[in-house]
């Protein structure tokens, strides 16, 4: 009966609805610094085997095709795309952009526990104690913690992450700390927890931390921020294809409904 068609089309609409949610999120974050866009992957569901392919016929030769009817689609996963975003030059001393691979490490509180999170957003500020904290809703502290002295007039952060300040009365710069970046075997396996942060999972692998410009890590550029890597043209095309596919699936539902109606009206009394 057309019941399989009904549910297959409904599964199509559900999956496309999920894709629409992901595309909408990408577009909403088109101006979020350090944001990485997501893509939805689909996979088809199990097939009903009405006849196995390769069963021998009367002449003992295998029949070339079987009869296999699919039951729909589902979302198999969402993949993060870590291609670099464009650079926004701000000129602010605590804004950092990672040129290449790597994540900043920050300490923050999530679900009641203090954890280490990772981010590409480098919009740091100096807090009251002198630590560098991420300017997000939670104030995640840069790890390893750095204290910038009260009387620092000028801060210079090199491409290798070395933080040097010029204090009141001095003519040379002193090193007060070092930024370290982290790298993952599978960054797409990181879990997004919002607030521009990612956390380590079993699928991302353990982080390898090092000084910038060593071990395959990128350089830290002071006075610049990485912008979102969302490409509006690609997202709009995805929107159009998703919407049209949604419409096509609704046509399938209507058609299945009409066939059921024809069957039930076959005999009138």
């Amino acid at each position, binding site marked *: 009966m057309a*019941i399989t068609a*009904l*549910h297959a*089309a*409904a599964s199509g*609409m*559900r999956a496309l*609805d999920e894709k629409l949610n992901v595309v909408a999120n990408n577009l909403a974050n088109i101006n979020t610094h350090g944001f990485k866009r997501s893509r939805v992957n689909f996979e088809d569901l199990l097939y009903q085997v009405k006849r196995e392919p390769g069963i021998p016929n009367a002449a003992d030769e295998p029949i070339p095709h079987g009869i296999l009817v699919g039951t729909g689609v589902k979302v198999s996963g969402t993949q993060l795309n870590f291609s670099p975003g464009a650079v926004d030059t701000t000129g602010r001393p605590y804004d950092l952009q990672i040129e290449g691979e790597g994540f900043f490490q920050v300490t923050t509180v999530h*679900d*009641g526990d203090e954890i280490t999170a990772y981010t590409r957003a480098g919009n740091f500020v100096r807090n009251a104690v002198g630590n560098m904290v991420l300017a997000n809703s939670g104030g995640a502290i840069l790890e390893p913690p750095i204290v910038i002295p009260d009387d620092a007039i000028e801060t210079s952060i090199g491409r290798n992450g070395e933080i040097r300040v010029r204090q009141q009365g001095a003519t040379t710069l002193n090193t007060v700390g070092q930024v370290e970046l982290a790298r993952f075997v599978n960054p797409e396996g990181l879990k997004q927890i919002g607030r521009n942060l990612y956390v380590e999972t079993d699928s991302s692998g353990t982080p390898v931390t090092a000084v910038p410009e060593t071990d395959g890590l990128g350089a830290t550029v002071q006075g610049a921020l990485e912008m979102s890597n969302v490409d509006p043209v690609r997202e709009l095309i995805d929107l159009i294809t998703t919407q049209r596919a949604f419409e096509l699936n609704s046509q399938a*539902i209507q058609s*299945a*409904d009409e066939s*059921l*109606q024809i*069957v*039930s*009206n*076959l*005999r009138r*009394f």
Partner: protein
Amino acid sequence: MSSYGLWLSAAGMKVNQHRQTLLANNMANANTTGFKHDLAIVSRRRIESESASGGLSCAHPVLDDLPGGLSVRPTYHNFAQGPIESTGKPLDIAIEGDGFFVVSDGTDTRYTRDGEFAINEAGELVLTSGNGRWKVLDDAGTPIVLDETGGKLSVSEDGTIRQGRTVVATLGLMTTEDKKSLRKVGENLFEAKGAEMASIDGNFRPESREGSNFDVMTGLATMIEAQRAYQLNATMLQLQDHLIGQAVGTVGRMA
């Protein structure tokens, strides 16, 4: 001439009508905060000899080959997590995971997932449903009262309510293992009929609301299925009526 088939078709129609009613309620509540959708449970009705004696000792030679039709079983509520949407309003709280807010109107205690709170004229935190008579309780079981001269309200992820920097209270969160004994009583509330409710630590999402956990797409497909099944049963009913009519009117006619 057996009209047993007539009753099977009637049972089929009744069951599908029940499914449609439940689905219609689920659809109507597709935007209700904290709504948990209902599942229509239908089971095969046992054949006469099975149900009569519990065994096959008084089996009927003809009726035992016929199935017993369908019957409706008690409705289950599906407590799956609904989608959490950010609203930006400080008094909207969503629960992520297990647990219910605890509310009371002075006499009865009820439980809900609807976290769209409001403040009444006495400064108490209340639900927006039920004309504001349901007060939200904290983890000690007392109604939460806010100070009108206090600072800006903020709720943190562990349920602590603060006004400015002062802690006012912590939101109460309770649950039970025996979810089957939680029945809906309207106004977005559940009543614990015979269940032991225990306090737990929860994950709250401030400035968010939990949407309905009903998936409209599947609901639509199931609704079409139920409607067509109803129609097919009605057609069978008409066919059987026609046959009986033939038997009585044509075959059994005298003169």
